[in-house]
Structures are given as structure tokens and as C-alpha cells.
């Protein structure tokens, strides 16, 4: 109905010659605007760069984005989707990959692991995606891993995770556990003189594995240090008063917290309400990024330390450009956490690898991955290790009331990823 009316109007308008000319002139404006943009299709022949039937044409290449945008995990995964789309847009603006524009197909894992596997299969088998950026929880990654291995796909996985995994078909752009834990514990031991640690976590594989590594490191490698308590809570737990009392009783030098999701909010609010002052009590976490602080409220967590590889406040040229591009695309109020930055690395690392390999073929990309350097990374500089994880620095930041972290410490060198750490299992 509307469409009919509109075309009537247009026709009437076009009857006047002057208006017609004006309209034609206006129609050319978008074309003009297109002019400085790169033209796609000038790359090497498709038959040469794609021998396995991936969705690559002379001017386009298709990748998949597979995250939860509905369900419980949407809270965490939204940032990753945003970062990946930003990276893809920037790569296209810079000329694409091997002269081809990246087109993405986005699928929703809906916070449900079998759905992730099903959508992964769809992206690989029906859409023939040359790469997939996706997954967030370890459970979803474990669900899609057999699919990627069976149909030979390439997954760029952004989250810091527990390690104990390595696959030809996955590039892990987040930290594995030792990269996130050991340097942080060494730092707190050295600068704060911490001797006693109270370990807390949500009850699933990542916090448990991480705390296991933390305990081994504290008891085996730090002189005279011990763990005075270790506790786990069901996901979604909202009452921490009992454990807070226990913490008050044992007076540990450090509270080491790996609590995730909504529980975080309850934990930090109750900690503050119970009169635990973070300027006197050291708290070190590896699970609270700027994203989580949004929900917790900066004033509730100010003074706590977090061990990550990236903070939004990092002071380097790459990061400043990244932060301003991100805010321009997604709004002034959005914050960028560790995982969001790691997700941003995915498309870029893939582009660099494809260009080094001179091919989109999965086997060639997997083989070319080790040694790939990305100098434009917001976190500074990263390099892919033979084990498909990233060399990256470990950093400690201190939470401020405005919801940002202030960088306190960073390792001098890149920390080697070690997904199967000897003596920590």
C-alpha cells in the first residue's frame, strides 16, 4: 500500500525536467561517495586460493560469526560480536582479504550448547564459511570442536579459558589459564608480600581448573605461601554472607575470586556491605572485566585487582584508535573488556594468516598460523604460538570507581602459552 503511494509521488516528481535533473544528480552522490573505497575483485584467481570449495568468489569471502545473542550468555557475548563486526568492517575498508570483501553470516547459539554444534555445522556445511569467529563458554567450544574437526573448519575462539586443549582447527585468541594466573600470583606475592590465599569460584570447569593451577603455584612455587580456603558456589548463587564471614575469620592476605555472571554482582555488593575495604584487603580476580563492572557498579569493586591481558585504559596508539572506533560504531557508553579485545583479534589474525598462506584453504591456514604477528593489536603485539594460542603479556589492573581499570603492572616480555602445563595438573 505504502509502496504504491510512494511510486505515484516519484512519478509526479519526475515529470518536471528540473526536478528530474536534480534527482539524477542526487542519485549520483552515493556513487561519488563510493569512489575512494577500495574496489574488490583484484586479488589472485579464486581457483588458486580456494581449492576445497569454500564460499570464496572473485570479490567476496564468507565467514561466520557464532555467538549467543539470546539467552543467559548474551550478556557476555554481545561485546565479542561487536568487536568482530568492527574488525571485519575495518578489514574491508582497508581492502579486504586477498582482494576480497569479507561477508559475514551471523548465527545465534542461543546459550545452548547443542544449538552451537548445529549452527556450527550449518556454517561449515551449508555456508562453507572460510573461518568462524565464535563461542564464549568452554562448554560451547567443546560442543563445536568435533564439528570443526570433522568438517575441517577454522574457529577463532576469544575467551580466556582453562587450557588443556589444542586443535589444528582452533586459534585461541584469549589466554589459557597459566598465562592469566601465574604472573598475577607472582606479582601479588612480590609487591604485596601476600602469604595466605583464599580461593573462590563458581562451580564449573574453568574456575576449578584455574584454582587448581593457582593452588599448585602457591604451594609449590611461592616461598612460604599457603591456601587457607577454597570454595565453590553454584552458578547464579546470590548469597555470599557465610563465606564472607569465613573470610573475615581467616583474614587471608589475598582473596582470589573466579566468580562469574550474575553471582559477581551479588558477591561484590555483599563484600562491600559487609565492610570489607578493598584498600586494606587485597582481592585479585581473573573473571571481572570492564563488561562485568558495568553490572556490578564501579563503586562496589573499586580497589580490587584484576589479572588480564587487556584493559580498555591501556595507553598505546593501537588501543586508542581501537577504543575510539569501537565507541563510534557501538555508542559512547559501551565498555570494552578483555574478551572483547581478544574477539577483535580473530578476524585480523585470520586475514594476516590467509595472506601469508596465499590461500583460504583450511589446511594451509592452519599450517601458516604459527608465527603470525599482529602488530596492530590493541593489547600491543601478539604472535601465534605453534600450539595455536597467543603469546601475550599478562597485566594487573586496579578497578576504579568509574568502572575502568588502572594499569598497575605488566610482564616485561610476552608470556608463552602453555595449555598443558607440566606439574600443574
Amino acid at each position, binding site marked *: 500500500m505504502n509502496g504504491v503511494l510512494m511510486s505515484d509521488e516519484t512519478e509526479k516528481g519526475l515529470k518536471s525536467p528540473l526536478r528530474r535533473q536534480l534527482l539524477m544528480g542526487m542519485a549520483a552522490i552515493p556513487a561519488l561517495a563510493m569512489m575512494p573505497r577500495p574496489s574488490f575483485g583484484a586479488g589472485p584467481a579464486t581457483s588458486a586460493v580456494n581449492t576445497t570449495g569454500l564460499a570464496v568468489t572473485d570479490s567476496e569471502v564468507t565467514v561466520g560469526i557464532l555467538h549467543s545473542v539470546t539467552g543467559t550468555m548474551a550478556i557476555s557475548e554481545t561485546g565479542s560480536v561487536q568487536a568482530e563486526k568492527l574488525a571485519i568492517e575495518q578489514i574491508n575498508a582497508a581492502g579486504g582479504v586477498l582482494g576480497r570483501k569479507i561477508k559475514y553470516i551471523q548465527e545465534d547459539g542461543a546459550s545452548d550448547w547443542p544449538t552451537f554444534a548445529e549452527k556450527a555445522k550449518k556454517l561449515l556445511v551449508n555456508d562453507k564459511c572460510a573461518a568462524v569467529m565464535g563461542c564464549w563458554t568452554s562448554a560451547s567450544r567443546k560442543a563445536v570442536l568435533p564439528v570443526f574437526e570433522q568438517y575441517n573448519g577454522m574457529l577463532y575462539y576469544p575467551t580466556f579459558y582453562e587450557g588443556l586443549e589444542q586443535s589444528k582447527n582452533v586459534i585461541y585468541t584469549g589466554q589459557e589459564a597459566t598465562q592469566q594466573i601465574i604472573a598475577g600470583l607472582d606479582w601479588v606475592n612480590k609487591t604485596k608480600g601476600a602469604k595466605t590465599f583464599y580461593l573462590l569460584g563458581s562451580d564449573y570447569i574453568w574456575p576449578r581448573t584455574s584454582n587448581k593451577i593457582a593452588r599448585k603455584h602457591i604451594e609449590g612455587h611461592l616461598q612460604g605461601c599457603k591456601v587457607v580456603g577454597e570454595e565453590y558456589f553454584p552458578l547464579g548463587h546470590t548469597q555470599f*554472607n557465610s563465606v564472607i564471614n569465613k573470610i573475615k575469620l581467616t583474614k587471608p592476605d589475598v582473596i582470589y575470586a573466579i566468580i562469574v555472571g550474575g553471582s559477581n554482582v551479588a558477591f561484590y555488593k555483599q563484600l562491600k556491605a*559487609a*565492610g570489607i575495604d578493598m584498600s586494606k584487603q587485597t582481592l585479585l580476580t581473573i573473571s571481572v572485566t570492564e*563488561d562485568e563492572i558495568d553490572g556490578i557498579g564501579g563503586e562496589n569493586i573499586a580497589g580490587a585487582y584484576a589479572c588480564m591481558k587487556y584493559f580498555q585504559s591501556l595507553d598505546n596508539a593501537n588501543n586508542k584508535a581501537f577504543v575510539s572506533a569501537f565507541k563510534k560504531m557501538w555508542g559512547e557508553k559501551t565498555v570494552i573488556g578483555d574478551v572483547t579485545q581478544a574477539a577483535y583479534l580473530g578476524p585480523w589474525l585470520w586475514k594476516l594468516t590467509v595472506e601469508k598462506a596465499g590461500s583460504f584453504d583450511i589446511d594451509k591456514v592452519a599450517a601458516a598460523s604459527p608465527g603470525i604477528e599482529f602488530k596492530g593489536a590493541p593489547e600491543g603485539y601478539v604472535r601465534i604460538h605453534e600450539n595455536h594460542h597467543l603469546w601475550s603479556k599478562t597485566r594487573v589492573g586496579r578497578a576504579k570507581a568509574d568502572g575502568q581499570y588502572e594499569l598497575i603492572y605488566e610482564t616485561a616480555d610476552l608470556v608463552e602459552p602453555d595449555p598443558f602445563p607440566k606439574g600443574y595438573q
Partner: protein
Amino acid sequence: MFGDYSIGDLGAIFAMQGFAGLILFSVYVLMALGLAIIFGQMGVINMAHGEFMILGAYVTWMTSNAFQSFLPALFPGYFFVAMALAFVASGSLGMLVEWAMIRRLYKRPLDTLLATWGLSLILQQAYRSVFGAREVGVELPDWMMGSWQATDSIQIPINGMFVMCLTILITIVVAYVLFLSRWGKQVRAVVQNRVMAGAVGINTEKVDRYTFGLGCGIAGVAGSAFTMIGSTGPTAGQLYIVDTFLVVVFGGAASLLGTIASAFTISQAQSTMEFFMSGSMAKVLTLLAIVAILMMRPQGLFALKVRK
């Protein structure tokens, strides 16, 4: 396990631990009251209860933002306004839902379970579309944060006391409304014999609608209060729903007193055990104990005596 601590320390801890249990108790009662009214008085299994709570939380968040931008001077008192608005918002939505959906399903109790579960999914996605998938942080006035220093080593969180007072107040109001007011008598009459109540001139449809609205409104107030202790996000309501049903079913569905007794039992068991073992184990043991007791007393702790 107590060998390392001094007597004074232990005394302080037991005091604070007892208080932690009381706070948990208030939280459970507040969560369960709305559901107890709806489930107990109307027999409707409202799976969307958590989402009505979260609506209250979002209303609180919006109110806090509004006060910060327009009335910063009155910010310390915004919470009371927020709770009233939360009650109105959740209550109105509840009455709308009753009118549009629930009243068509009174004769099919199991279908209400499915219908309200569907409603909860719809509401979750609606929150996600309107407020975004990320959690929002509700800023609290300063006087509500921090703790009250009872002695040197005993600290009582102020927001915990606030929740306790609120729970007591709401419980008294609900008890008064249901047991002493004219409207409460009508509600109970409708529950006992709908046809007869209609025959003596009670507008049963209206009673149903207001009862459902009251239950949802209290859920909204609970949600508002929980912004102090928990998270506010589209799916945060799911965190509460299991515990809420546990309290109501364990207490005996139709009994307000039962709900309170069951909340007390569960919270004390939970917080005492949490002190001696890890949070996960405490939860497992609590649930096991409840299963065992419900096997022996399927009708719950307190049940109305009815002739079978």
C-alpha cells in the same frame, strides 16, 4: 576447626552468621510471598514470577537514573519511590496478563504452567530488546551501603537490615489484607467455593484479577529490593525461580505461615551448612533434605486440613 580462633572471634562470627541466616530468610520470604499468594490462593503455577521481579528491578534502575538526572537532591530517598513504582508496574502487568491469558486457563492448571513459562521467555526477550543484553548496575544511595558496626568485630550490612524490615512490613500488610480485610475474606471465599462466592454477590473475576495483581506487585517490590544484593539483567529472574518454588512447595502451597516457616528452615540450614562446607555442597545437602521431607510429607510443612 575452631582451634585456631579466639572465643571473642567465634562469638562475633556466630552473631554475624546468625544474621546472615536471617538476611537469607528475609530474602526467601520476600521472593516467595508473591508466589505463595498466586499459587496458594489461585492454584496458578506462575513460572514467570522471576520476570515480574526483574521488571521491578528495571523500574528501580530507571527511577534511579531519573532521579540522578532530574532530582539529584532527592537521590537518597529515591528507593522508596522506586519500590512503589515497581509495585504498580509489576502489579499492572500482572493484571493485564491475568485478563489476557490466565483467566482462560483456570480450569487447566497444567496448561498455566506452560503458558506462564512461555510468558517468561517472552518477557526475557522483551527486556533484552528494550534494555540490552548486558546487566545494568543500579546505583544505591550511600546510606544503604556499608555496614553498621555493632561491636568491634561484629558488622551488620545495612542493606541486609533494610531487606529484613521491608520483609516484615510486607508480610504484615499481606497478612492483614488476606486475613482481616473485607477483600481478603472475599479472596478466601472464592478459593473455598467459587460458585457459592459468586452466588452471594462476590465478583469472582475481579477478585482473581486483583489477587494475581497483588502477587505480581509484591514480586516487583522484591525485585526492587534485590537490586541491592543481586544482579539486574534480562535473565536474572531465573536465578530466583527455583528457590522460590522450593520455599512455597516445601511450606505447603496454601499456607502463608507455611511459607514463612519453610523459608526459615531452608535459609538457616543453608547458611549454617555453608559455613562448614562449600557453597555447592551446602546446596546439595539442603535440596536432599527437602526431597526427603517432601517424600514423607507430600503436602508440605503446613497444609490446610481438607476433607478428601
